[in-house]
């Protein structure tokens, strides 16, 4: 079955209206319910939330030497903040799930297919 990456991107320096505790609790609850549903329907593969991009380190080789640098790889203002890896029959099924998640967290989600997966 095809796999998709559902990724949530955070924008550096973007100030969002702070959520009230009540809103935050409700958002967590909705997300928890969606994740439970994903697991029971067999769509859930893996998910995770990442620390801020400034905690990232990049490793590369240059002239046979390993070079380690502080900071994220992409020189952009948008960074991956968290993701789901899901199994879905087709793009419509993946988009329907992404629509539920985006409604719960009020942040856009990028849906991208995996080139190949171990169970294909």
């Amino acid at each position, binding site marked *: 079955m*095809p796999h*998709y990456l559902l990724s949530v991107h955070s924008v550096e320096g973007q100030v969002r209206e702070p959520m009230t505790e009540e809103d935050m609790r409700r958002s967590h609850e909705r997300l928890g319910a969606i994740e439970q549903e994903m697991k029971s329907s067999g769509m859930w593969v893996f998910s995770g939330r990442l620390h801020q991009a400034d905690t990232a380190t990049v490793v590369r080789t240059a002239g046979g030497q390993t070079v380690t640098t502080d900071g994220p790889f992409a020189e952009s203002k948008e960074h991956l903040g968290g993701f789901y890896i899901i199994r879905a029959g087709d*793009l*419509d099924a993946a988009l329907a799930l992404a629509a539920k998640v985006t409604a719960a967290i009020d942040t856009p989600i990028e849906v*991208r*297919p995996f*080139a190949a997966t171990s169970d294909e």
Partner: protein
Amino acid sequence: MTTEGQEAIGRIFREEYGRSLAMLIGLFGDIDVAEDAVQEAYTLALDKWLAEGLPPNPGGWITTTARNRAIDRLRRQTRERHLLGEAALLASDSEPAQEGGAVPDDRLRLIFTCCHPALAAETQVALTLRLLGGLSTDEVARSFLVTESAMAQRLVRAKRKIKAARIPYRIPSDHELPDRLPPVLAVLYLIYTTGQSSPGERGLCGEVIRLARLLAALMPDEPEAAGLLALLLLTESRRAARTAPDGSLVLLGEQDRGHWDRGLIEEGQAIVRRCLARDRPGPYQLQAAINAVHADAPTAADTDWPQIIALYDHLYALAPTPVVALNRAIAIGESHGPVSALTLIDQLDLDQYYPFHAARADLLRRLNRHRDADAAYQRAATLAPPGPERDFLNRSGRTA
């Protein structure tokens, strides 16, 4: 005879292309495999039919030949052998028969794939023309004023995304239709208007009407699909009157109504009446109804403007866009005079839209404000795409 025969075969091929291709995609689950096979079948048909004449069912011959060619080729290519295993699976996975036992046309599935919201609007249009309209990549490129290689790239990328992201090849379920039908209707309407404003591409309009007929026939429960077909038929009925012998544009009010196609009008008006009886109005049905009112008037002076304004009021309630407001104001101008129309139009934020300036120019001319009218015609001509409409605006500017 040979050229004539080739042209006749080319015409049949274009008419049958979408049906054959859609069926093969259903069978093999792969657009590229289906395209190659249908192309190969066409090459074979050209040789065979020129020598032996047409078979009794040319469309069926193309589909069967293409299917056999595709199976042969897939057998030869071990790399793609797994597709053969899937072919049977996909075939049995097809939609269950609808009421009355009618098998839904594969082309309907294909149009929903081409117009999937995960594809950019311009890509939706290009794919629809290429895969359902049977236009060559070069023809699609010319319709949109881009190079053939740019269009080829756009199509390759779109097909890659359909395959990689698994954009489904099926008719959306009822609860999905409110989101999925509007882009299909918008793509067809956009292709029609593109064909209408580029005189070299009038074949496009015929293709769109063919696809709109198909959509309306295959989705009898969707009044907006019928509405789009009626709108296109009624617009098409005025084609012959829309241009003067020298190719210049003739406005609706000045057209020779004797040159309107009565057959298309009757067909369009009958659909509008059925839509009214059904009473589930939508933007395309209302635009069709407005055109039906125009078609009823033997002369421009007989036009029932109050009814047209009432229909625009209804349309504006459903689709409150500045373009609808502009057209409503133009109708008010015909009924209440240019001053009230100009007051309404000057409140609209449509500075980049050439029909806005053209409408202002016409109202200013009627108010004898010739200098202002001239400036508005010039502004409209600068924004209009090259073609008869721009020529018309340039000419009017000089005489305003």
